[in-house]
């Protein structure tokens, strides 16, 4: 019992290179599976997200494919996995999180629906409360322009002069 290797549950999100993905989804999936295997991880569940627009450009890519993988691995092997993912040209980003246990598909679905519900209630509350101070404050911050109209121009060249 004591000599057994302890495998811990992890969740890995891989952002893969889009151009290659368009041609062969299976190839990319296999590539990620190979990365996991190299690190000695056992994939439990593999999910492919739809092609998504990225919020910002990553390595020249505006779109990407996300692969979510729940796997079990030794804690030491995560460093190997990270290194392998960094060396891989097909994987743009990778995020690995340690879990307490791997959630079932039903649990994941339930969670997302309850989150939606909570948000909807929150929205209603915000509407009732009528607190929108953030917007007001942002509008008030336009006061920066005052700096431009102020006459520190007399002081500025003097400083420059000292530096020169």
């Amino acid at each position: 019992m004591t000599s057994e290797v302890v495998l811990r549950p992890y969740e890995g999100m891989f952002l893969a290179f889009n151009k290659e993905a368009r041609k062969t989804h299976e190839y990319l999936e296999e590539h990620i599976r190979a990365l996991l295997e190299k690190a000695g991880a056992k994939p439990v569940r593999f999910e492919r997200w739809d092609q998504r627009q990225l919020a910002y450009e990553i390595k020249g890519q505006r779109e990407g494919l996300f692969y979510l993988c729940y796997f079990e691995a030794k804690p030491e092997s995560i460093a190997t996995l990270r290194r392998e993912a960094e060396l891989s040209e097909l994987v743009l980003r990778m995020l690995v999180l340690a879990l307490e246990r791997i959630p079932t598909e039903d649990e994941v679905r339930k969670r997302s629906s309850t989150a939606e519900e909570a948000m909807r209630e929150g929205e209603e509350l915000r509407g009732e409360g009528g607190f929108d101070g953030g917007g007001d404050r942002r509008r008030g911050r336009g006061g920066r322009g005052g700096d431009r109209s102020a006459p520190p121009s007399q002081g500025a060249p003097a400083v420059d002069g000292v530096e020169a």
Partner: protein
Amino acid sequence: MLKKKSRIALARARQRRYRKFVDRGPCRFCKKMGLEIDYKDISTLERLCSQQGKLFSRKRSGNCAGHQRELKNAVKQARYLGLLPFVG
């Protein structure tokens, strides 16, 4: 007279608004027991961020300290993966 009246009305409105803000009750995530904040739940995260991509303050969103912290981590993870913008 009118001026004074309107000033009083304004002050009352302000007071009312403040009172409502104070009486808002527990945070939206505390109400739903067992609800976890996840970086993959982008619609939730987006609604708690401004158009610039900055996380709303606790005062604005009404979150408790613990959930606000979890939310902060989730937003940072989502930003790293390109799911949310660093700057909108």
